[in-house]
Structure formats: structure tokens, C-alpha cells
């Protein structure tokens, strides 16, 4: 892992043209530090306990039960050997935003993130699929664990054009129906949409017993609003223009933005969904490392 951060820093990835090259670079980075990597076994839902048998992995011993019963029991996970992971990528116009201090646009960063996750899942011999959407589902690749799946995912993402508004609510409802097999659904988006509609869609996922992970990708400029000069803000996704003095608006904007993030985070937690705020100026491995570590600790 010592070399991984350099490989996975946004500034470095930005120098590489094309998602394939970036994917290759990411994989190289992860391989270089994989022996100490925490990137395995994520997203398996606990199902039941069974008694320990010699040769079982001691990591799955439920020590709490041992403390109560003085017997070794292992946590048994559902579909432990056949994880299905669907990556749901927002390709709406707002994802094209790239702030003045960011090396990658939100979409580029989200693609890199998706590739990384896909590779990690594939490394576990599990199935991974891809959905891209804006105000409609643009692409849907069913999960598979074949070696060619990753390349197909990369090809699809690379050829996807960004356009249209974000319409998460209807999309999530649709996907809840279309993704038949239960699995992990990782939604990568800026979630610039109506929260109530979005939450309704997410509840549908939950109803279908999917394990949903929300990764909100935001540009640092969107989180800090660092502008000082008088600026004409041209709205993306058909939003209107606005001439404003950023200094006088900063506080109010940040209040609105933080309230939105907090609202999404709290409602996601209420639905037992994992939520991760991803800044596009942060290194991929740092984000994933902390997120997966905390997720593993919570599950095990």
C-alpha cells in the first residue's frame, strides 16, 4: 500500500487520458499494496450462526456469542459465496462540474471510483454490474464475475455521454424492480435532486432487501464556495443564471448545502444504508480504505 496513494491521487489520474488507462493505473496501484489491503469481504449481509469447525476462518468467529455461551460460533452470511454488486452511476449534466481546484470532474472521479469498486468485487470472484442514469436508465450491465466484465464496464462508462437532468426517484424505483437478485447496490451520484423523491426510491431498494451504499461525490468548490469575485453562475441541467456576490452569499449557500448533505446522510442512516461523502480532491484509496474498514468493523 505504500505506493498506492500516489497512483490513486486525483491529480495523477487526471494526467491519464481515458478511463481504461486510469483503470489500469488504479489496478496497478491497488495490486502494489494488496497484501495489507482491507479490500475484501465487504458487503455480505449477516444471515445466521453455525458452529465452528476446524479450518474455518477465525475472523468470522462471533466472540460475543462465545462470551455468552462458551462455544465457538461462526457468523454465516447470506450469499457469501455469490455476492452481487450493482454499481449505479449518475451521468447527469451536473456530474460534469469541475471546480477550479479539482483535477477531475465529478463524473471522471465517480468513474474511477466505480472502476475501483468493480475491480475489488471482481477480485473476490464476485459478480459486478453497472447501471448509468440521468433522468432515465442509459445503460444496464447485468452482474457477472467473468474476466471480461470489468472491461465491459469500463467501455460502457467511457462511451456514456453526460446529459439530462438528475431524476433519482423514478430511476431508483425502476432499478428496484429491474435488479432482481438481492445484492449490494452502490449508488455514485452528487444527489442534486429532490431529497424526498430520492428517499422514496431508496426505500424501494430497501424493500427489495438490497444492501444500499450511497456515495455522494462533490467537488470541493461545491462544499466550500471559495469564490470572491462577482460571478455569473450558469446553472447546469437547465437551471437559470444568477449574478451574485459570493462573499455575501457564502454563508447562506453553505447552510443550504450542508443541510442537504445532512438530510441525505440522516435519512440514509435511518434506512440502514451506508453513506459516504466523497470529495473529488481526495485520494481514492484513502476514501475506500476508511469507508471499507469502518463497514467491515460494523458488519463483523
Amino acid at each position, binding site marked *: 500500500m505504500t505506493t498506492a496513494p500516489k497512483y490513486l491521487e486525483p491529480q495523477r489520474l487526471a494526467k491519464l487520458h481515458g478511463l481504461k488507462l486510469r483503470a489500469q493505473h488504479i489496478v496497478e496501484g491497488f495490486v502494489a499494496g494488496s497484501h495489507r489491503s482491507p479490500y475484501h469481504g465487504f458487503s455480505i449481509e449477516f444471515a445466521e450462526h453455525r458452529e465452528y469447525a476446524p479450518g474455518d476462518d477465525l475472523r468470522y468467529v462471533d466472540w460475543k456469542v462465545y462470551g455468552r455461551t462458551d462455544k465457538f460460533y461462526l457468523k454465516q452470511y447470506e450469499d457469501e459465496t455469490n455476492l452481487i454488486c450493482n454499481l449505479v452511476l449518475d451521468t447527469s449534466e451536473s456530474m460534469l462540474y469541475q471546480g477550479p481546484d479539482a483535477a477531475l470532474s465529478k463524473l471522471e472521479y465517480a468513474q474511477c471510483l466505480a472502476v475501483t469498486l468493480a475491480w475489488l468485487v471482481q477480485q473476490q470472484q464476485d459478480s459486478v454490474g453497472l447501471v448509468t442514469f440521468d433522468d432515465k436508465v442509459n445503460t444496464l450491465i447485468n452482474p457477472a464475475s467473468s474476466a471480461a466484465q470489468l472491461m465491459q464496464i469500463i467501455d460502457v462508462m467511457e462511451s456514456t455521454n453526460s446529459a439530462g437532468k438528475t431524476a433519482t426517484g423514478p430511476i431508483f424505483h425502476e432499478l428496484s424492480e429491474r435488479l432482481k437478485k438481492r445484492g449490494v447496490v452502490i449508488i455514485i451520484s452528487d444527489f442534486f435532486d429532490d431529497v424526498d423523491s430520492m428517499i422514496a426510491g431508496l426505500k424501494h431498494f430497501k424493500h427489495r432487501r438490497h444492501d444500499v451504499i450511497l456515495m455522494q461525490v462533490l467537488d470541493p468548490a461545491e462544499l466550500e464556495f*471559495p469564490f470572491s469575485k462577482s460571478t455569473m453562475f450558469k446553472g447546469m441541467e437547465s437551471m437559470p443564471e*444568477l449574478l451574485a*456576490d459570493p462573499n455575501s*452569499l457564502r454563508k447562506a449557500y453553505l447552510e443550504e448545502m450542508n443541510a442537504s448533505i445532512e438530510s441525505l446522510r440522516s435519512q440514509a442512516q435511518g434506512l440502514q444504508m451506508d453513506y459516504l461523502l466523497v470529495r473529488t480532491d481526495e485520494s481514492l484509496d484513502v476514501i475506500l480504505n476508511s469507508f471499507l474498514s469502518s463497514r467491515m468493523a460494523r458488519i463483523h
Partner: protein
Amino acid sequence: MLFWGCAAAAPILIHLWNRHRYQEMQWAAMQYLLAAIKKNSRRIRVEQLLVLIVRCLILLLFAMALSDVSCNWSSSLGTSLSMSGTTHTVLVIDGSYSMDYQSGGTSNFEKAKQMAKDIVDSGAQGDGYTLILMSDIPKVIIAEPSYDAADVLREIDQLQMIHSGANVTPALAEITKILEKAKRNHPRLNRNRIRIISDLTKNSWESISSQDATELLEKLSKAASFSVIDVGQVATGNFTISDVQQELPFATIGATTNFNVQVDGSGDPVTTQRAVRMYADDVFVSQQTFDSSADTATLRFSHQFDIAGDHTVEFRLDEDSLSIDNHRWQAVKVKNSLRVLCVAGQPGAAKYLAFALQPDRLQYPTVRPEVVNQSALLELDLLQYDAIMFVNVRDLVQEEAKLLSDYVYAGGGLAFFMGDRVQAENYNNMLASTDGVNILPTKLIGPSVRGNYRFDPREYQHAMLQAFRGQQDGGLLITPIWNYYRTEKPENNLSNVSLWLDSGDPAVIISKPPQKPTDEQHKFHLPGRVAVINIPASIQSVDRTLTPPESWTLFPSWPSFPPVIQELLIELVRSQGDSRNIQVGSPLIGRVEEASTDSSVDLIPPNEQRVRVALETVNGSHQWMFDQTEYSGIYQMIDRSRLDASQSFAVNINTRESDLTRVALEDLPGTLNLNSDVDNGSLSFAGIAGGSATGLFRLLLIMVLLLVLTESILAWRYGTGAA
């Protein structure tokens, strides 16, 4: 100020300009930005407006602090910004000689000068100063506001006290003129303050309650702030030589000249004896003491001059706190004898007169009469004579009248004794003409009817009759008079009649001819006196209506005749010494026999700063005049064409100012804003300054600083800081 004030609009302009200068940017999180605008648009506008106002105020106050307010009082902005701008200070220093009062080794005048300098020192850059020396006639030292403090300080340093009194009312009038002029010519001076530094003596300030002063004060108080700074002393005791009188108006060699010295005042109770010393030509002559517990004393000094010519006499009183009035000078022109020309209208007519003028035959007679016929009149240099007396002269020709007029206006004394030959109409035409020579004090009517008349001295009020008071045996009252010459009674001034007849007609009339201010020919002259004596000086005047003709009077042979003639002569020449002994402020007038090459004479005042005075030639006479007699003492005229012909003049103070009684402070109008805590010289000038511009400058800068701080906090609070 308006120009600098425009800088305050800069933030508004920048704000408007910035609305047209902006960067463009694609923005994804637009919904949050719109929500922020929707919820906070009103607050943001208020905050922006507040910051804009603060920024404008910063620039406005900064401009006010750094710049002169160049708007005048009449403008509304000037009124609203009256706290700013520059100040015109009118400094008025009391220049009366009472300010020479010494206490603690320093005179009040020096204290006043120091205070004036302190006021200038405490002023701000751009302030203007004018300077007035308050005296009887205020002396404007700096008439137009001077912005050079060093120059003003220099002028104050060079100020010299005038040896006269002072009057506050003319000073107020002069201040009014200066302020009006400054308002027109120096609009940037939008605040006025008047600082009068005085010892507040009653004589100088008693006119403050007059109608004129009240009106001036009311007018000035609307345009300026007043402050009167009291540098006077508590003690008012002071002795002064108030007058010196030479008993006879002339002095001759060999004769004793007497001086009566008047001392007035009140002193400290410790010193009971004070001395007055007499100096003749700076040589001590004698000393007399007087009891200083009395308010007044008259001392008689005598001296005999041995050399004819100009002499000076000084009387010095023991020194006290006010030195100026302890000295008094007298210029004395000592003659060999008085020369009197007696013009006889007929042979022997002046015999009694000449005898009366010189009754004794001394080696050095006081009076030397010369009897001539009328025909010699045009051939003589009349200016060589101290007096000319006409005795029963029938008539005069125009040339003679003109000659006599010039003689009188040159200071000579002239007397006309009436008689049976005198032609009234001729005298009236020649000497009492309204459009020609007019030196006769009355118009002649003609001889009276025969009767039995006597002199009526009327309480001996006239100076000429003082010698007869209580001397009824002298024969004046019983002088036999049967005829006399009738003249009109002087309409304007009956006091010109020295002696009356019991018929109610004047017997002797003495007066000065009127001074004509527009008369260029006589502008230098102090005219001599002219007398008309209606009683003949010769017994040759007879009433020819009687057979045989009988004399008009026995007066020429009567014992009262010589003393009357002697007293008459004294009256005729009394004013001749007046031109040599004047008061401070009066002009010195003199005459030289020959003009120097540059037609000027030198005059050396007491301060020894020699002044060149131009000569004017009028009718062949070379005359000069000097009117800058501001200091008491001896003034010496040097005729560079004849160094032996120098003349001395004594200029003395009017001792009215020697009364150090102070005006009642409670009687002073409140608008004067009196500062009287100066006995120990510890007056606070911060209070007098009335808030200096330096303080205002600091106040404005502090306000700017606070506003800058406020702006920073607001900017942080509303924008930058929140990030």
C-alpha cells in the same frame, strides 16, 4: 472639501462598476444557491447597503480629516460640516500704557504678547490670523488673515505699546471690518474667533456698555466666538505726574521760569513720602517731596535759563509699578526777550503802550517793544516778533491784511487797540471777511455815545484777569471811560470776551481764528491769538463832537493799564508754546528758515529711530508735520541745512489711562466670555482655543479607525469571514 467629499462616492461607483464586471462559471449546485438567495435576499441587500455606507463614511471622514473645508458658512454643506475647516483668529492686544504695569518682573504687555503667541502656537495648519493693537485709535497690524504662523509671531514680537489710552468700541468696529473683509476674500476660513487680551482698565472698557458697543457685540457674536483674556493686576495704586504748567508762556534769559507740577494718584500705605526731581537738559536741578497719603499734590519748581534757544525739562517721579506716567517733559524755547511790534496809527499813539510793555529799564528786559508807523509794516519780517499791537490805526490795505493773516496763522499774537481814527467798515472788510482774511474775533460797529463807563470783570473768570482778583485797589474797576468802540458780541463763544464794560459791551475780546481743515495753505499752522481792545491805548483818541474835544478815556495813564497790557501780552503769546508741547497722538508741526537740498528734516523720536520728514513750502515758509507721535518723551528735529537750528518738542501722555481702576467684571457682557484666571500666568489655552482643529483632526481619524474596524468585522461577518 466638496472635491474631497466626492471621494466618498467611490464605493458606490465601484459597487456599480462591479455589477458590470464579473466572471462566468458553470454551476451544478444551483438549487442550493437559488434557495440561499430566496431566503436571504433581503438580508443580503441590507448587509451590502450597510457595508457600502460604512465604506463611504470612511472615505468621507478621512477626506474631512486631511483636507481644508473649502466651503463657506453660507453653503448648507459648510453649515453641516462646521466642525471642520480652518479658523480665523482675530488677536487684539491692549496697547494702552497701563499695560506697562510691572508685576513679577514682567509687564502686562509682555504677558499679553506671550499669550497671543501661545494662541498662535496652539493653532492648526491653515488657520489665519489678524492682529490689532487696541488704543484710542486701534492700530491694525495685520489686516488680512496671515497663514504664516511664524510671520504672525514675528509681528507680535515686534509689537510696541503706544503711550496712549485705549477704547474697546473702536476696536470692535475695526474687528467687524476685518471679519467682513475676510469673509469676502478668505472663504476657506469658516470659523472666526476673537481673542482680546487686556488689563480691563475702566477707562478702556467703560464704553462697552454704550449703544454702539452693544450693537457691535451683537453683530460680532453671530459671526465669531469671543474670549477676553484678563492680564490685569489686582492692585490699582499708582502715582502719576498729571500736568506740568509753565507759569508764563514764555521764558527769557536771566528771568526765573517757574513750573507747577501736578501729581495725582494713590499709592501703597507703606511709602509716605515720594519725590519729584527736575532735570533741565538732562542735568539735575532740584527735588521736592510730597506726602503720598494725599491723592494730589502741586509742586513748584524754578529754574533760570542762561542761554537762549531750545531747552528740555523733565520731571521724574519716584518709580512705581507703572513707569510711563512717572515722567513728564516740557520743551522750553528761551528767548533773549519778547519782541513786540507796536504800530502807531498816529505819532505818539503807542507811547503809553510801549511804556506799559516795558515799564522798567533793565539790561535784559523781558519784553522789548518796537514802535513803528504803519508805513513800515510791509517792510518788516513780522515773524521775528512775538506779538504785534495796532494802536488806533485808521485802516488797512489788502496786502497788510494778508500779511497779518499769515502772521497769525504762523502762531503770532495780534492785538488791535481801537480809537477815534479806526474805520470799522475797513477793518470788517479787510480782517473779518467771509471769503477772504478772517482773523478778527468780532465785527466792529463804531464809537459809542458819550457816557460814563466802567470795566466789568464779571467774577474775574478770564485768565487775563486772574492777577486782579482781590486787588480792588489796582484801579481796574474805577478806570474812567467816556467813549469806547462798539463791537458785536461774539455769537458762538462769549468766553472769548476777557473783559466787559458795564454797558454790557465787550471791552477786550481774545480768540483764535477758525482753523480751516480744507485750507491747504494753513494746514500746518496752529494759529496765534487775536485780540480786539475796544478801549484806546492812547489818550489821543478824543470825542470830537465836544468842544473842546475830550479824551475817550484815561485808561492809558491809569495804574491798571500796565498790568492789563502785560496780561494781554501773556494771553497773546500763550499758544506759541503749544506747538512745542503736545500730547501723544497729536501732530508735531514746525518751520525751518531754509530748506535742505532734499527738502526734508530729520526727526528723532524717543525710541531714537530717526525719521525723515518732508518739507512743504507755503508762501516762502518751509514747514513740516509729523503725526506718528505714539510715544512720550522728547522729539528732536534736526535741520540738516542748519545744525544749530534743531528744535525740541515734548510729547506727553494723557494721564487718563493712569487710573488703573478696573471695569467691574460683572458689568461685562456675557458674550465676551471672560477668562480672568491669569494672575499667576497659568491660563489654560486649551479652553481659550475653544477646541482646536488638531483635536478635531484626531477625532475624525479615530472615527475613521473605528469605521475601518467596523467594516472589517462586517465584511468578515457577512462574507469572507464566514468561509
